[in-house]
């Protein structure tokens, strides 16, 4: 199996603007070409698009708009973790030798249809993500005595960290009382504990070990991949554990021959504040029942180890772009190019991306 590296990337600003999906994809792709040395269209073997948009044939459309005539071209949809799912597909093509260089472009619009899974009958009329998030939060409060203030710390930290991310949707810091007093969406969810569905796009260029150094002196290797899907229905879930995340993390750590305490920096799927508290524990970054204390300590010490770009809460959540945007951030961190967001001595990073109330998860380990 060939080694695979991230060798280029591009982001658009995340916003609530109504921008055509093709324009979003093209804009982050243009950034990849503008910032990657020695890249030309004829070198690209594959173009994979990650999106929940209803438009068809976007792999071919993006290829044509970019002047690429790839061997492999298609779309990947897996709700909120489409981005990492598309990346795993691209990785597999390269690792197997079917391709050497693949562009993975993710995008969604703020009104994208990936926010509601119509098929899940078990949700009744409570189809929107705020309802499963309320169930997760209430169950966590009940079982672990988690407080509103502990939840607010996640949001305060991620909004603050997003201030230094030029592509983030939010550029406003909030105090913990402001978050706790923000609008009640439900009794267990404040407005500022939710990520925003955004318009935005992120792209990465993946290359095999044979050619990676043509594009960069510091390729970032994807050394571990773990994925797990337990169901599509939300109501089958345990409400206080991200079981698929635990499984995916085990697989990824095993493949990378790494342990959680070696992770210097991580992008975590904080669709809602409660998700970050659960994920840091289920990824093994904090011991069980200490997630809130762990995150508070990061916030108090201005340690950006978790969600340096601001997470989904601070950066915004253009579903199909999110997983790729997380990979871009960890790549920049491991290349020591994250500017004000830089975590010192970052050699090993983790990406955690999940879908539909953690019914599926992807965990990636990246290394410089």
């Amino acid at each position, binding site marked *: 199996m060939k080694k695979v590296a991230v060798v280029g990337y591009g982001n658009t600003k995340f916003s609530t603007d109504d921008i055509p999906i093709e324009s979003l994809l093209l804009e982050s792709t243009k950034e990849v070409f503008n910032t990657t040395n020695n890249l030309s269209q004829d070198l690209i073997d594959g173009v994979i698009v990650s999106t929940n948009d209803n438009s068809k044939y976007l792999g071919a459309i993006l290829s044509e708009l970019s002047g690429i005539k790839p061997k492999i071209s298609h779309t990947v949809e897996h709700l909120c973790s489409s981005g990492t799912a598309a990346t795993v597909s691209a990785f597999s093509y390269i690792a197997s030798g079917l391709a050497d260089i693949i562009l993975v472009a993710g995008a969604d619009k703020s009104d994208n249809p990936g926010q509601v899974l119509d098929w899940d*009958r078990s949700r009744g*009329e409570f189809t929107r993500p705020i*309802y499963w998030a309320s169930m997760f939060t209430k169950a966590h409060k009940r079982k672990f005595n988690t407080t509103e203030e502990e939840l607010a710390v996640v949001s305060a930290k991620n909004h603050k960290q997003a201030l230094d991310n030029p592509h983030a949707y939010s550029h406003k810091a909030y105090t913990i009382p402001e978050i706790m007093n923000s609008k009640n969406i439900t*009794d267990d969810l404040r407005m500022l504990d939710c990520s925003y569905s955004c318009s935005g796009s992120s792209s990465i260029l993946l290359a095999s070990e044979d050619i990676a150094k043509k594009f960069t002196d510091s390729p970032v290797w994807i050394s571990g991949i773990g994925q797990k899907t337990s169901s599509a229905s939300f109501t089958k879930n345990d409400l206080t554990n991200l079981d698929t995340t635990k499984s995916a993390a085990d697989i990824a750590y095993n493949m990378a021959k790494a342990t959680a305490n070696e992770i210097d920096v991580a992008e975590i799927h904080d669709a809602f504040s409660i998700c970050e508290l659960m994920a840091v524990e289920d990824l093994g970054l904090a011991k069980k029942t200490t997630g809130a204390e762990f995150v508070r300590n990061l916030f108090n010490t201005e340690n950006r180890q978790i969600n340096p770009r601001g997470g989904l809460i601070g950066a915004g959540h253009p579903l199909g772009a999110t997983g790729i945007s997380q990979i871009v951030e960890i790549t920049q961190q491991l290349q020591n190019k994250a500017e004000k967001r830089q975590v010192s001595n970052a050699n090993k990073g983790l990406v955690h991306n999940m879908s539909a109330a953690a019914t599926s998860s992807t965990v990636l380990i990246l290394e410089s």
Partner: protein
Amino acid sequence: MNKFEEELKKGNFITSECHKCDKIVWPPSEYCDNCFGNVNWRKISENGEIIEWSKKGSDVFCIAEFEKTIRIMGKLNTKNTDAKIGQHIQLSECSFNQGYRFIFM
């Protein structure tokens, strides 16, 4: 419209089950998720219990479990402002118009 939706539209809450595997097949499906054999359809007991709940405005919404297997989200039709874990409830109304709707009491 599938069988589940046809019946839900009439106000009937039904599930698929596999006699061969002796199991409820949920979410509802045409085939058993274990043996892929044809399923039978039957009404679900109206008696369930609350697994978790929260509130939006004055509406109490919850996950309720039926027959120790089938979990759905619905609105609790109650004058009380709260609910309890394990509280016994009954499915009082279900419907399928543009979406699915379950009401408990």
